[in-house]
């Protein structure tokens, strides 16, 4: 061995000594994915200022090279330019892999309008960084309302849940940085625990066509991605500060990223928001403040071939809930509803209204969500990309009620939800015209309800096991036609331990149907151990076809099954803000959705139009409705039961943009939706009413990038609603009254204005100054999908000033 080394060294030495400059570097340039030859790639040696190109077989030769390190650049249309270093010690063979259709690159170049999509045949929209930054002080739900067909269901103005085509909560999957958010999303008053400032872009996919994210997203999927990191040696960041009059609050968010050309990157992000009591036009909304703090770190390494990412995020929200919405019984509810009908009487403010304060008292929520994620990917030559992801989420929810005595500062709800997920997916993309993706997901979830609260558990202790497999494929028939198919199977198992009042157990008929699951009898209470298994099959098929540069159509079909969530199964108790007893049902089975949709897109120089229609038929649709009243020592309460029916939802979402000139534009977003209960032949409850938003905008790049928009938002009264009114005896007035909990609030129209300029402070530093006025005319209104609409008006006028510094 030693001899060989010696000989080689001698040879090398003699060669060097000879200062020979006629070595040859040759090889083949081919595509990384399918190994096909790349013709016409340019090789440029900067130090020698010499060019060559690969021939039709992808071969290249560079002659007359001296010994030493040779650095050259390889470029080809549609590929990422590569810098290659080769040690020349003689005639050298060197194979070059080019990356032809890099996803990361595709996302930027796929079409000039910069609308990167995650799917090709779904109804998908995107909010870009610039739009998200405007909502820095607000919530995910507020930002998403700017997509046609997305609305929100609110509890006040700080608990905002997105509603996609009339569906929400467990029917909408939220993905953040590759992690499916598990934050007790079943409850209407549980807002997604997302800090908008941590997202670089948000894609919303309507319907259950993106099976990679889950098979149960009957409503749709919301995908949040962090800011794209470009691989160069740099350090950059941004800070957004805003202050507003309504709520007398501020918000600050800052991001800093360090990246290295070699592939390493690190991003740190933190944000804080603080608001006091918000104000309706005529009165203060006592105890509606918000205190939110969050930070995240995102680090890793990425190259085309391999990479990993480690992510941690922390978010704590303390949210006050309108004091006047905490009520004792139906009589209190009746009093609250009657307040709004006292037209002409100035003092119609909600009960418990006080002067402005930053204090957040009971009723309030204190929710902390933490995510730890690690993922890893590797690309295999002539094969595809393998990805493995693990995440752990810890969701701690405290809800404080108005309580007396020693319990005053004790939470009424104390739930800890822990979720582990392991996912793996393999994408086979050797043939760009037929891309396949296979995936596997395993999940374990544990919910713990702390008994120290002194209040019966709303959600019981449970363990949940999930396993899913999927296969999806994308076929590109030609430049204008794409086809997608997908199939997914999920197994869910819930193993719960729950205490039932013996009287409730009998009233529900469980003593007959579930007698065998009772594990302990405490006299007035029973401990039971329901173990529920669900098998869910989902499928999707989609097609997009581009007739020409102007006209495109998309069709798709999605089949999806969703297992009932813990609230639908186990709810059993009194809901204070609604003055109702809510009851789940152990017998509830999964719901099945068949969704057909069609889109038409038109685009020319000045007009762009996107029409999205859908029809969603849901068998065994799970929903809650009043079924009677029960008497307690507090008085009478209506009972709301989770039941199943067959439902049909259909609608049309319109997005249109018209540029009059380079400077002026008009924009319209409208959505129309109907929901029917097919068995009872009546309207479904909580379906968003017709909404249309018109924007007149002006842009002028010469005036410091001046931008101004005047917005008109019109929401019509929902005329199609089920009548759930009920008659109740009011002892204090000694009469029977009809309690109107069904009639939606009247039509309202709001005007908003926003404007911003960008000032260049230095070569790398931009300052953006924006002002924003919402509800310019201080209009009093109530929104049908706000659960506090019985108690108070929505927000009055707000002035906001926002400063954004990019550096």
């Amino acid at each position, binding site marked *: 061995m030693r001899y060989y080394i010696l000989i080689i060294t001698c040879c090398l030495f003699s060669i060097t000594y000879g200062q020979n400059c006629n070595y040859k570097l040759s090889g083949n340039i081919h595509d990384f994915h399918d190994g096909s030859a790349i013709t016409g790639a340019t090789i440029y040696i900067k130090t020698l200022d010499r060019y060559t190109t690969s021939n039709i077989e992808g071969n290249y030769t560079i002659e007359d090279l001296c010994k030493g390190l040779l650095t050259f650049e390889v470029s080809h249309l549609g590929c990422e330019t590569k810098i290659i270093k080769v040690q020349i010690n003689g005639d050298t063979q060197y194979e070059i892999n080019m990356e032809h259709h890099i996803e990361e690159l595709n996302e930027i170049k796929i079409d000039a309008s910069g609308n990167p999509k995650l799917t090709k045949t779904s109804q998908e929209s995107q909010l870009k960084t610039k739009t998200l930054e405007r909502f820095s002080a607000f919530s995910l739900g507020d930002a998403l309302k700017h997509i046609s067909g997305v609305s929100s269901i609110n509890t006040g103005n700080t608990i905002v849940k997105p509603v996609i085509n009339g569906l929400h909560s467990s029917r909408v999957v939220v993905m953040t940085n590759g992690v499916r958010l598990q934050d007790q999303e079943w409850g209407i008053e549980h807002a997604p625990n997302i800090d908008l400032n941590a997202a670089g872009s948000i894609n919303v996919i309507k319907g259950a066509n993106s099976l990679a994210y889950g098979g149960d997203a009957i409503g749709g999927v919301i995908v949040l991605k962090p800011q794209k990191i470009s691989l160069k040696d740099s350090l950059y960041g941004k800070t957004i500060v805003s202050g507003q009059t309504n709520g007398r609050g501020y918000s600050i968010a800052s991001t800093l990223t360090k990246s290295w050309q070699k592939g390493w990157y690190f991003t740190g992000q933190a944000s804080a928001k603080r608001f006091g009591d918000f104000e309706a036009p005529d009165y203060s909304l006592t105890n509606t403040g918000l205190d939110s703090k969050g930070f995240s770190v995102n680090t890793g390494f990425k190259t085309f071939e391999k990479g990993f990412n480690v992510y941690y995020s922390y978010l704590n929200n303390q949210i006050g809930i309108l004091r006047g919405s905490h009520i004792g019984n139906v009589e209190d509810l009746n009093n609250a509803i009657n307040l709004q009908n006292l037209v002409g009487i100035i003092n119609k403010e909600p009960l418990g209204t006080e002067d402005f304060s930053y204090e957040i008292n009971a009723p309030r929520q204190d929710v902390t969500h933490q995510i730890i994620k690690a993922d890893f990917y590797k690309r295999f030559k002539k094969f595809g990309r393998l990805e493995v992801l693990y995440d752990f989420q810890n969701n701690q929810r405290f809800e404080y009620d108005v309580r007396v005595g*020693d319990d005053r500062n004790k939470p009424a709800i104390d739930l800890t939800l822990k979720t582990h997920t*392991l996912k793996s997916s393999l994408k086979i993309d050797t043939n760009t015209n037929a891309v396949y993706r296979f995936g596997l997901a395993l999940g374990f979830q544990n919910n713990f309800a702390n008994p120290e609260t*002194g209040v019966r558990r709303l959600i019981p202790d449970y363990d949940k096991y999930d396993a899913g497999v999927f296969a999806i494929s994308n076929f590109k028939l030609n430049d204008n036609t794409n086809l997608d198919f997908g199939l997914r199977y999920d197994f869910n198992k819930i193993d719960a331990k729950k205490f039932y009042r013996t009287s*409730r157990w009998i009233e529900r008929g469980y003593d007959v149907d579930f007698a065998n699951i009772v594990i302990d009898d405490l006299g007035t209470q029973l401990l039971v151990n329901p173990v529920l298994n669900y098998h869910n099959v989902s499928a999707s098929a989609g097609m997009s076809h581009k007739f020409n540069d102007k006209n495109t159509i998309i069709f798709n079909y999605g089949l999806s099954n969703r297992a009932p969530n813990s609230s639908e199964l186990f709810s059993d108790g009194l809901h204070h803000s609604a003055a109702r007893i809510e009851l789940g049902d152990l017998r509830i089975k999964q719901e099945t959705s068949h969704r057909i949709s069609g889109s038409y897109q038109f685009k020319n120089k000045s007009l762009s139009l996107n029409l999205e229609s859908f029809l969603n038929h849901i068998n065994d649709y799970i929903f809650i409705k009043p079924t009677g009243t029960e008497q*307690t020592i507090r008085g009478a309460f209506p009972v709301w039961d989770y039941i199943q029916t067959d439902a049909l939802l259909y609608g049309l979402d319109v997005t249109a943009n018209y540029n009059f000139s380079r400077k002026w534009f008009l924009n319209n977003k409208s959505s129309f939706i109907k929901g029917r209960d097919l068995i009872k032949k009546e309207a479904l409850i909580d379906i968003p009413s017709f909404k249309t938003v018109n924007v007149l905008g002006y842009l002028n790049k010469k005036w410091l990038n001046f931008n101004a928009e005047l917005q008109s938002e019109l929401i019509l009264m929902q005329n199609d609603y089920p009548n759930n009114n009920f008659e109740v005896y009011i002892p204090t007035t000694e009469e029977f009254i009809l309690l109107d909990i069904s009639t939606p609030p009247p039509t309202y129209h709001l005007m908003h204005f926003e404007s911003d300029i960008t000032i260049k402070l230095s070569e790398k530093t931009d300052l953006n100054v924006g002002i924003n006025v919402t509800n310019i005319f201080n209009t009093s209104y109530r929104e049908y999908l706000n659960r506090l609409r019985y108690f108070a008006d929505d927000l009055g006028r707000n002035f906001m000033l926002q400063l954004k510094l990019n550096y």
Partner: protein
Amino acid sequence: MKTLKNLSILFMSALVFTACSNDDDNPEPVNEEEVITTLTATLIPVTGGTTVTLQTRDLDGDGPNDPVVSVSGALASNTTYNGTLELLNETESPAEPINAEIEAEDDEHQFFYQITNSLATFEYTDFDGDSNPIGLEFTVTTSANLGTGTLTITLRHEPSKSDTGVSDGDITNAGGETDIQAVFSISVE
């Protein structure tokens, strides 16, 4: 591949760990601390006679069973009764008295008494630190009218005791939230 292996080990161990920590034992039952199951009003005639008790009792709290309401007998006309209320949480054993809790926060609580058909009048005899009424102690004076009607007892948490009529026992402007509302059928003979 090694990363994959490590990840799966991490996952498995996390799974085992979480599973072990919770699976073995059953959850503890919750002691409901604030539930009021029983309200008893005892009316003792000042000048001697038959004591009348009115009781509402809902042992399953917010459960499906209705409260059991009982009235021991008829009230005598033209009689003044000294009344007291006793509140209990009978989901606990022994039953937990609640009166003290209300007395400790008497400025935040007030009982209201409403009697129909002018069968009787009512007066507070206990007051909080601001000289506003509470209503755990009171007097009921029946009139000369004979007949039947209802007596409604309402407990409001955080009422506005200073609003018009509230301290005189008029619930109209009281606001707050209802903690107890019981309706008794009474008769005056």
